[in-house]
């Protein structure tokens, strides 16, 4: 019960948070942060259990007939993510309460971000694939609301929509992949699928499954060429960028790849697609990062780069690579969230995020500067930070691959150097050197704005100095969960003098060199950025425009706004469908029976047809009314001839009333004028004749159908004994089906009220 409670409590708090904000105001951030803090404590309490190799599952029936259950699965991998989500969530909530204080929609912000947190927990804890998918989509949806939080700005809305469309399309592919996976593996539960990896990898549907799942993971985790939505998402308030777009949501794709690697991993297709996409992403991201001058964009692109590194490592799939991925992931979460929060604090204090206008801030905001420095050093991969351990493992994993180790190492080194430069630009540069004149005089921000960065960056240092804090308790269970059997993980700062250390040192030296010449470097490389960045964005924009053009074209055709075109389509399509059905049911040949026709019947038929024709052709309103009267009374006579005296009576009464009413109304209307052209008339006449002819065919067919007589004969037999009435039609109306008649009377009464209201309604003159 613990897991589902932890998720549902997040949703529950989300919905009461706006109310809470009305009473809690400024303290709300601290109050709501208690929940993720409590959740973090709960997940920590599971560490010993999970470390001993235990897996915690919970299952609730949802749609058992389809194999869909609300089931949860907690192993080392899930636990690592759940801990990150809940503990960073707490810091973010405290931070956001202050960062956005005074914002008119802050109450709503808590709703969105708590909803996101709960959904994200759902993603990493779900056992059933459909459950996972539902939470996955909920994270996209809450991300949409959070990116578009400043909804009165066009850029925010556009960025939100872009993120939603890109991840949403990926999500649909993922759903298809999950369904295929469920059919192939004969279960939708991850816990079962994890044991049937071999069968799935050898199945003929393996390739489509993998490609669909990758489409979902790559869009969510911003892999090239889907990476463009992540920098755009920086329109979101900074706490959101820190939480969703660096620490958690963008890692959902990484989580999924890690989670499914025992099922789908280990093949050539897996290896090549993940390493290619990952390597491309890490270089493009790092390269783009140093091209930026906006603090948040530098961080966003470096996040893209790290997501590429993680994808590549998961693609390699060796024990070492998986170990590197998990260490790198934890390190990245710690330093990147810290740097984002620092960027927010700097923006909050100085009013700008432009790195070219920031410098020397350490004097005004020393605590923030220390946090930023620690985080940046970890990001640069310098000892004794956790980022250093991650980077060493990353190089080591690259060196041990069987093919293309040199290429991979070279690309990794390039990425490492560029990330080093980015770290310096975002975390060090704004705080040292000359101070610029700013609109606002910066001060040290309040505790809620530096608590998060200090704790996160401090943890990065602590884990680096004493990796024993996390290696056996968090990293080892996660690695074991991905590999599929227990793997011991012993992390240390000093690995001895090995190639990875040498490479690391070269990277740092190269990074320092590049940092020194960065302004010239940026200028030289900038023409490239147009190609790399603009093309996917351009494609996205063009396809969106195309979609809108098709939609408006379609709307123009279907939604013409003219009543008669709607009717035209309805008549034609209905008649064609009826005709098709009639033909497919055995042709149009009804028994044409022209014998046994009395002369007065033929006369009546002719009268009706002539009346109808006259009523539509005449130019005189009163002729039309009279012609309609002829039709109505003739129909009444047909009712009389064929044994329906009640119908005839009603028809005559109603027809009389209709004629009177019509005359009264039409008297006030203008005379008929011919509005439409001859061509339009001919077209309408042809379509009407076609539809009318179809109805004739339908009647001919229908008279041949032998109705089962039970219902009518029941009335015929029981009318006298049960209802004591001899007129069976009357008995049906007032006795057997009296309730229907009550409904009919109600309709009449409502129509009567409507008529009365319309007649009595006084139009107010304009402006009164």
């Amino acid at each position, binding site marked *: 019960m613990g897991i589902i409670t932890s998720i549902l409590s997040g949703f529950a708090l989300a919905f009461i948070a706006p109310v809470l904000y009305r009473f809690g105001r400024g303290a709300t951030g601290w109050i709501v942060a208690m929940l993720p803090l409590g959740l973090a404590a709960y997940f920590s309490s599971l560490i010993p259990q999970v470390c001993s190799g235990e897996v915690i599952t919970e299952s609730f029936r949802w749609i058992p007939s389809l194999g869909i259950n609300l089931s949860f699965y907690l192993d080392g991998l899930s636990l690592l993510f759940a801990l990150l989500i809940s503990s960073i969530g707490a810091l973010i909530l405290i931070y956001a309460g202050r960062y956005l204080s005074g914002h008119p929609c802050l109450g709503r912000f808590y709703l969105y971000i708590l909803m996101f947190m709960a959904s994200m927990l759902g993603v990493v804890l779900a056992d059933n694939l459909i459950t996972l998918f539902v939470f996955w989509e909920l994270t996209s949806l809450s991300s949409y609301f959070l990116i578009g939080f400043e909804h009165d700005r066009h850029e925010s809305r556009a960025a939100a929509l872009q993120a939603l469309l890109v991840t949403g399309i990926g999500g649909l592919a993922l759903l298809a992949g999950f369904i295929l996976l469920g059919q192939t593996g004969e279960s939708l539960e991850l816990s079962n699928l994890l044991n049937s990896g071999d069968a799935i990898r050898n199945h003929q549907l393996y390739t489509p499954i993998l490609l669909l799942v990758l489409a979902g993971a790559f869009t969510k985790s911003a892999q090239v060429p889907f990476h463009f939505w992540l920098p755009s998402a920086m329109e979101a308030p900074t706490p959101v960028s820190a939480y969703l777009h660096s620490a958690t949501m963008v890692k959902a794709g990484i989580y999924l790849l890690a989670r499914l690697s025992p099922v789908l991993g280990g093949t050539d297709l897996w290896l090549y697609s993940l390493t290619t996409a990952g390597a491309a992403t890490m270089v493009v991201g790092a390269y783009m990062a140093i091209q930026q001058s906006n603090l948040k964009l530098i961080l966003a692109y470096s996040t893209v780069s790290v997501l590429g590194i993680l994808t590549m490592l998961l693609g390699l799939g060796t024990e070492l690579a998986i170990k590197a991925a998990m260490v790198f992931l934890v390190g990245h979460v710690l330093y990147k969230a810290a740097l984002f929060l620092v960027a927010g604090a700097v923006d909050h204090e100085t009013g700008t995020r432009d790195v070219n206008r920031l410098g020397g801030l350490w004097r005004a905001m020393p605590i923030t500067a220390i946090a930023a420095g620690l985080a940046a050093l970890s990001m640069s991969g310098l000892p004794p930070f956790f980022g250093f351990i991650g980077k060493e493992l990353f190089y080591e994993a690259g060196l041990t691959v069987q093919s293309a180790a040199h290429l991979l190492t070279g690309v990794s080194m390039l990425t490492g150097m560029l990330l080093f430069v980015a770290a310096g630009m975002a975390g060090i540069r704004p705080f040292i050197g000359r101070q610029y004149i700013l609109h606002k005089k910066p001060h040290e921000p309040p505790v809620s704005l530096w608590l998060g960065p200090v704790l996160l960056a401090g943890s990065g240092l602590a884990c680096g100095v004493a990796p024993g804090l996390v290696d056996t308790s968090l990293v080892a269970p996660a690695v074991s969960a991905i590999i599929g059997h227990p793997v011991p993980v012993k992390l240390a700062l000093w690995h001895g003098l090995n190639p990875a250390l040498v490479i690391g040192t070269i990277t740092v030296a190269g990074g320092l060199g590049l940092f020194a010449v960065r302004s010239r470097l940026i200028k030289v490389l900038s023409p490239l950025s147009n190609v790399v960045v603009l093309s996917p964005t351009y494609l996205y924009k063009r396809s969106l425009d195309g979609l809108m053009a098709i939609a408006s074209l379609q709307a123009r055709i279907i939604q013409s706004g003219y009543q008669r075109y709607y009717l035209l389509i309805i008549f034609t399509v209905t008649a064609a469908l009826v005709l098709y059905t009639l033909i497919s049911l055995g042709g149009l040949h009804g028994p044409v029976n022209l014998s046994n026709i009395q002369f007065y019947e033929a006369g009546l038929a002719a009268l009706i*047809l002539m009346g109808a024709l006259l009523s539509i052709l005449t130019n005189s309103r009163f002729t039309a009314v009279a012609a309609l009267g002829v039709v109505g009374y003739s129909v009444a006579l047909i009712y009389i001839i064929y044994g329906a005296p009640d119908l005839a009576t009603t028809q005559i009464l109603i027809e009389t009333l209709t004629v009177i009413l019509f005359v009264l*109304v039409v008297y006030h*209307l203008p005379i008929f004028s011919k509005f439409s052209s001859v061509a339009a008339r001919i077209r309408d006449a042809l379509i009407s004749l076609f539809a009318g002819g179809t109805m004739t065919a339908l009647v001919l067919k229908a008279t041949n159908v032998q109705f089962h007589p039970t219902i009518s004969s029941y009335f015929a037999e029981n009318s006298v004994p049960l209802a004591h009435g001899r007129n069976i039609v009357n008995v049906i109306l007032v006795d057997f089906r009296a309730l229907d008649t009550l409904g009919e009377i109600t309709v009449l009464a409502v129509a009567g009220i409507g008529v009365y209201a319309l007649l009595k309604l006084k139009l107010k003159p304009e402006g009164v």
Partner: protein
Amino acid sequence: MDTVLAIVIGGLYAAGFYSMLRRSIVKLVIGFILLSNATNLLIFTASGLTRGRPPLVIEGANALAQPHADPLPQALILTAIVIGFGVLAFILVLVHRVYQTIGTDDMDKMKGIDT
């Protein structure tokens, strides 16, 4: 007679459709009346015609003598006639009101008028 009535019904429908496709709103109402009559006759004819044998139980008998006209469609049509009239009355008054307010009976000119 079935065949003749089938043609009559088809004719009524065709006239009703044609009338509804006109731009004048009064023609729309005329089309509505024609369609009501056509549909009532359609139900009446489709359920089988019996000449001159109304579904009335004669005095002294306990059940209907065969053959007789089917009472059930008659009950349905009776309801339909009455409801059709209710709707028609409402439409007519509405048309009257629309003309008073907008001053046109051309449906193409009724677009985008918010009075």
